[in-house]
């Protein structure tokens, strides 16, 4: 058969595409269960990492997760638990953050740690090149951040990608998302010399300005709907006044820096 003829070319490309298509779908189907399990395990690892729980040798993520995460549920913007058929673990945060606050499904994971019970919530936003996301663990007072975990899809290595490093996420430990007056303020991500006096802040990554601003916007947008939920926890905490005074002290030391 003439290899330059149109018929040969059409048959050749058709056969090639069908063969490649079949091969790819077989590969996809064969590997899918394993991939889904990996993705679920990775999400569990991220949730636990925000509560400073890291698997030691010999521990599997799945075991560690069922050991520490005692309860998970979905709340709405009024802070009430929603009786939803969706598993909190399966809520697509990437889609929820685009909805108006009152329509969002807000997953909360209750996590037992050596330092007591923590509330873990997911955050999701945009960096410079693609999505950034993370999990924040809050103390039982619903105000103080116990730990933070951030991840990104493709931020610049050495610049924006530094948000996943403990050097950045560790800064969030001990920060408060409510101002002393009780207003929801989130946490600011700021340059040295631009530290605000009236709200908690962390230092941005030099050279990673857009990603740092993305983190700040992500926290504000993702945490704000939780404000009612956290405010109830804060009100139920007996030593609220004490934490408020500690916070005022911290505010001053922040200014001095």
């Amino acid at each position, binding site marked *: 058969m003439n*290899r*330059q003829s149109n018929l*040969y*070319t059409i048959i*050749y*490309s058709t056969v*090639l*595409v069908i063969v*490649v298509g079949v*091969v*790819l779908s077989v*590969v*996809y189907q064969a*590997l899918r269960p*394993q*991939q889904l399990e*990996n*993705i679920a*395990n*990775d999400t569990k690892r991220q949730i636990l990492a925000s509560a400073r729980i890291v698997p030691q040798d010999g521990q599997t993520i799945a075991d560690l997760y069922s050991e520490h995460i005692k309860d998970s549920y979905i709340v709405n913007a009024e802070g009430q638990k929603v009786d939803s058929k969706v598993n909190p673990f399966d809520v697509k945060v990437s889609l929820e953050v685009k909805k108006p606050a009152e329509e969002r499904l807000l997953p909360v994971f209750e996590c037992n740690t050596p330092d007591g019970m923590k509330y873990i919530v997911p955050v999701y936003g945009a960096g410079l*090149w*693609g999505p950034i996301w993370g999990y924040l663990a809050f103390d039982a007072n619903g105000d103080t951040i116990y730990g933070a975990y951030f991840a990104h*899809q*493709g931020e*610049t*290595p*050495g*610049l924006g990608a530094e948000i996943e490093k403990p050097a950045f996420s560790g800064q969030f430990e001990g920060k408060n998302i409510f101002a002393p007056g009780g207003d929801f303020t989130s946490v600011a991500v700021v340059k040295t010399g631009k530290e605000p006096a009236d709200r908690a802040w962390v230092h941005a990554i*030099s*050279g990673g300005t857009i990603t740092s601003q993305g983190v700040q916007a992500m926290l504000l947008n993702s945490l704000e709907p939780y404000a009612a939920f956290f405010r109830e926890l804060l009100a139920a905490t007996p030593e609220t006044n004490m934490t408020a005074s500690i916070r005022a002290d911290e505010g001053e030391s922040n200014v001095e820096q």
Partner: protein
Amino acid sequence: MNVNKSLLPLVNPLSKDNPVIVQVLGICSALAVTAKLEPALVMTISVTAVLALANVIISLLRNTIPTSIRIIVQLVVVAALVVIVDQVLKAWNYEVSKALSVFIGLIITNCIIMGRLEAFAMTNRPWASFLDGIGNGLGYGIILVIIAFFRELLGSGTLFGCQVIPQWLYDHGYQNNGMMILPPMALITAACIIWVHRARNKDLQE
């Protein structure tokens, strides 16, 4: 250098016919993945694997491919291989696949792969094509690793993420060069490598 003639496709691309600094292919990804050593190394391994496999497949098919759609056929083969590599990594080594994420797409568009398929695999036997794929992948990798070494060392003070510049240097006023992390310095580093390489290989000078 005296080497077995059949191994020439493997050895030549390492220096004399290096894809990046002599053939000037794959410069784009040399800028993108060399801010740190680790992604540079992962990219090297992936490109070498994809290139060797694609070279063999195209070489096996070379006598059947219609000339008018040969580039499309090459692209389909490369894209399919990259997707398979991505899927396998996601299932068996999720950590590495996460580190690769954005670079996977870059492999499909890597000019080295198309360049070698068109220039070598279309006219050579499978075994020679396989060696050519490995050789060019490694030749590309050498340059990537050299660039990434300098960029990570001078830009972040680390190698493979470990701090190597001692703290007392910072205490005495040393600062990481933020410029090294930005893409232009990859080009300048590559140019320095070409300079040294040409100075040592007079026959490459024009």
